[in-house]
């Protein structure tokens, strides 16, 4: 069922996706042309070497972007991984006299193994803890490299001969491109490696892997509940990133022909972070721009005249930006005074100093501060802001979006007699507090079952117990399945999701920086059969799967009424639509049981009507629904059966109408008039 796409965002004209795609292709062509021609135009070997180093750094930073940009973690250990790659290659030569190609293989392999090692302590931590873990890791690597002298030659370092890229003597012939060409073999090898890295990273981030990385940054809890294991994908991210760092390290060793322990320390790791942030995260151009900046910056800073010229240019640019902001009366024009003032002050400072080299690190530090506060999306992000046509249409770039197939797989069920879900004597205790004090619940298939109760009655606790976020202190949760009954208590949220139980959250847990379509695609993760190599190589199987799942995801979006908004980032959707998207994402799991946690909270009346209609459609498709709600009208209108909780006990159960009239329920909600009488006479 083909559908034409109506653009939802007026500022992104319909041609935008294709322009961004062409911009990407154009950039790639330009890059290849530039790299191919460069050494023939600029023949100085110094500059050729500079480009080699930029390319090598770019390879590493593209890998770093996966961890920093996509999974959103700060890694302070990448210089250490770089060092591992370099030393793997150097040690192979030192002890076994093995050359460049073996070095590259070892670099990738050994560093990937270290990536797994690093991932282990990094699994359960995040934020500053993760940063410290990576920093400790990097420091340990440096220490071991320094101390294991028999292996690494310690502080003296290892010297390597010129790299032998292609050995024509093996074939009994001369190099077709002559002696001059031979010198460039390493250069072209590095360029090829860079281009290969760009392709690989591109493929990975546009695959389910890339989506999983972003998902685990935006909401680890939702990830687990959608069946995407946070641990597993964190490991993948670290390993891929480490592999690229290892490749870069091995190339670096053979490029510089010397490795020493103190080159791979904290300073370098911070430079890498500066590069990825300044260039622009989540892009391919960003890391390359960032690499160029950090490699060329020391050279620029060494030349004081050049520094003064650049400072002058920066000051002039700042004046222009400031003047424009004030003339156009932009909102934040006063906030801009500080950075503009700093840029202006920089110029006279450079006039006063004779040499800036000693203050190189201060300059880097100031650049970091500047980027963190005023350029958080980097240069690439800034350019995209300013030129809306260049904004990427994410992983759904310009490909036709049409829905295909049924949104929901039909569930066998109907209003059967046997219960679908049985909860027996669920007890949930937190210290002395009994959030659930032995609750029984039976949910029949094909029904909408309401769970209500005043604040603190245990509804959300029950929800979390059912979906594996809490392990119940006692009691059992059993799900009836075709192959037999399955115990759910004690299982992880991932396992429960895989068993056919999906949920939405009280506070919306969407993957905010991903589009609506991508959010649903994450829900469809369970149906992807390909592995990482399929993704990297772009096999036909991978492409077919991607097409099919996109079509299915569009069908689901149509089902919840979000078809036209498929390309909009989740955080830009109106609140009511966000709630519907969460439901759509949950439906992608092909659940037999859907748990909705206060889906109507904060919705306006028309949104609520839309929501109720969709919930009915879901039930009609055979999916059983458990609904926690405070909006009584919603509950009364939808639910076949209602259970009422109070203080962790079930106090009533029955049809919606019966429960509404039950005096115990009224008392639970409104409080007891009887006690009130007594206090009035006290």
């Amino acid at each position: 069922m083909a559908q034409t796409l109506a653009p939802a965002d007026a500022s992104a004209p319909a041609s935008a996706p294709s322009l961004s795609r062409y911009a990407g292709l154009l950039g790639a062509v330009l890059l290849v042309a530039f790299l191919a021609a460069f050494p023939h135009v600029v023949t100085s070997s110094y500059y050729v070497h500079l480009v080699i180093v930029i390319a090598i750094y770019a390879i590493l930073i593209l890998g770093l972007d996966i961890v920093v940009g996509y999974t959103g973690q700060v890694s302070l250990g990448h210089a250490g991984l770089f060092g591992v790659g370099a030393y793997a290659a150097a040690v192979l030569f030192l002890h076994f006299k093995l050359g460049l190609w073996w070095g590259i293989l070892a670099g990738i392999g050994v560093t990937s193994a270290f990536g797994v090692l690093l991932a282990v302590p990094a699994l359960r931590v995040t934020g500053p803890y993760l940063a410290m873990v990576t920093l400790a890791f990097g420091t340990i690597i440096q220490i071991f490299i320094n101390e294991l002298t028999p292996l690494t030659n310690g502080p003296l370092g290892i010297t390597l001969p010129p790299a032998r890229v292609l050995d024509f003597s093996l074939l009994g012939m001369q190099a077709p491109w002559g002696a001059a060409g031979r010198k460039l073999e390493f250069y072209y090898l590095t360029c090829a490696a860079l281009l290969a890295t760009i392709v690989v990273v591109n493929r990975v981030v546009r695959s389910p892997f890339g989506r999983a990385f972003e998902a685990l940054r935006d909401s680890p809890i939702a990830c687990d509940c959608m069946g995407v294991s946070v641990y597993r994908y964190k490991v993948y991210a670290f390993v891929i990133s480490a592999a690229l760092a290892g490749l870069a390290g091995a190339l670096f060793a053979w490029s510089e022909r010397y490795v020493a322990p103190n080159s791979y320390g904290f300073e370098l790791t911070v430079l890498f972070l500066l590069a990825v942030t300044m260039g622009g995260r989540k892009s391919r151009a960003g890391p390359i721009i960032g690499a160029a900046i950090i490699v060329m910056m020391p050279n620029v800073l060494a030349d004081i005249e050049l520094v003064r010229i650049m400072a002058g240019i920066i000051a002039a640019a700042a004046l222009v930006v400031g003047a424009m902001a004030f003339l156009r009366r932009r909102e934040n024009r006063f906030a801009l005074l500080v950075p503009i003032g700093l840029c202006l002050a920089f110029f006279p400072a450079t006039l006063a100093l004779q040499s800036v080299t000693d203050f190189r690190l201060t300059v880097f530090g100031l650049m970091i501060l500047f980027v963190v506060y005023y350029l958080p999306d980097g240069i690439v992000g800034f350019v995209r802001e300013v030129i809306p046509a260049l904004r990427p249409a994410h992983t759904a770039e310009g490909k036709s979006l049409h829905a295909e197939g049924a949104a929901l797989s039909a569930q066998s069920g109907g209003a059967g007699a046997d219960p679908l879900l049985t909860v027996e004597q669920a007890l949930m205790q937190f210290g002395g507090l009994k959030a659930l004090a032995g609750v029984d619940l039976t949910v029949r298939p094909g029904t909408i079952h309401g769970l209500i109760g005043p604040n603190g009655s245990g509804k959300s606790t029950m929800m979390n117990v059912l979906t594996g976020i809490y392990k119940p202190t006692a009691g059992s949760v059993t799900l009836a399945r075709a192959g037999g009954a399955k115990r759910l208590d004690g299982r992880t949220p991932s396992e429960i999701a895989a068993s056919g139980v999906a949920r939405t959250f009280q506070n919306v847990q969407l993957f905010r920086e991903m589009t609506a379509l991508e959010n649903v695609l994450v829900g469809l993760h369970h149906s992807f059969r390909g592995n990482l190599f399929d993704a990297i190589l772009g096999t036909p199987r991978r492409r077919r799967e991607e097409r099919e799942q996109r079509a299915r995801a569009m069908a689901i979006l149509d089902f919840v009424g979000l078809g036209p908004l498929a390309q909009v980032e989740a955080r830009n959707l109106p609140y009511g639509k966000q709630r519907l998207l969460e439901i759509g994402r949950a439906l992608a799991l092909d659940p037999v049981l859907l748990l909705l946690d206060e889906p109507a909270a904060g919705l306006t009346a028309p949104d609520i009507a839309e929501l109720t209609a969709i919930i009915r459609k879901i039930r009609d498709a055979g999916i059983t629904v458990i609904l926690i709600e405070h909006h009584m009208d919603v509950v009364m209108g939808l639910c076949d059966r209602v259970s009422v909780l109070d203080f962790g006990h079930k106090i009533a159960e029955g049809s919606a109408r019966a429960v509404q009239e039950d005096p115990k329920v009224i008392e639970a909600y409104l409080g007891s008039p009887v006690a009130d009488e007594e206090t009035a006479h006290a």
Partner: protein
Amino acid sequence: MAILLQLIASGVAVGMIYAAIAFGYQLTFATSKTLNFGQGEALALGALFGLTLVPFIGYWLMIPLVLVFGFALGAVVERLGVRPAVKIKSEYGWIMATIALGIIFKNVAENVWGRDDLKFPSPLPETAIQVAGIRVLPMELLIVAGALLMMLAVEIFNRKSIWGKAVVATSNDIDAAGLMGINTQRVITLSYSISAMTAAFAGVLVAPVTLTGATMGAVLALKAFAVAIIGGLESGLGVIVGGLILGVAETLTGFYISTGYKDVPGLILLLVVLSLRPVGLFGKAVIKKV
């Protein structure tokens, strides 16, 4: 045996330094859920600033000035590095910003005091003395006493003075503290000031027994973070235990294995603890609320 006891005694002294720095991490993390990745540079700057003052006014008079210096430094870090990031709710922001400030401070220090390590004159005799049959350096005793005294002083401040209680209240529940009329922003700045002050003080305590220079703080700060993790970023006493464990493990490793590997036990301990118990040994497990 005598050597073992001597090593343990040295380890205790080193451990107290770690505890003192870790104490600073706890303070800012408790009130603002952030910490200063440039804490090591605060320590180094404190030591270098003290070194400059000592020839003029001597060791003991230098201490209060270094405390004031550290206090001011902390406020600067908070204002420039932490506050803007917290306002835009960017974790990446304050991590990178405090790292950047640390780099800037280190670079400035290198330019002002040079890149070589300097000798800090010791206020106490540098020959070992016998205490309960163990040979210790008098300076090591001063380190232990000084660190304990400082942590005690902050604890007393927290318990007795109204602003100290405000700091504890902010750590417990920042919203409720605001309802009490407590200016929680000022409390956060105060906690950063106290944190940098303790780091600077640790700097002048440890400087006489080690080499003083712009780079002296970096690895110390990282290991102190290990101690803070082991102790749990919310608990007070745990850092002392953590510091002692780490300090003694280090001196023993340094002697029995090799000085090059001295720093390794702390770092490995950090990795192991975070792998097994992400909230630290003494931390409280957080109940997820969805």
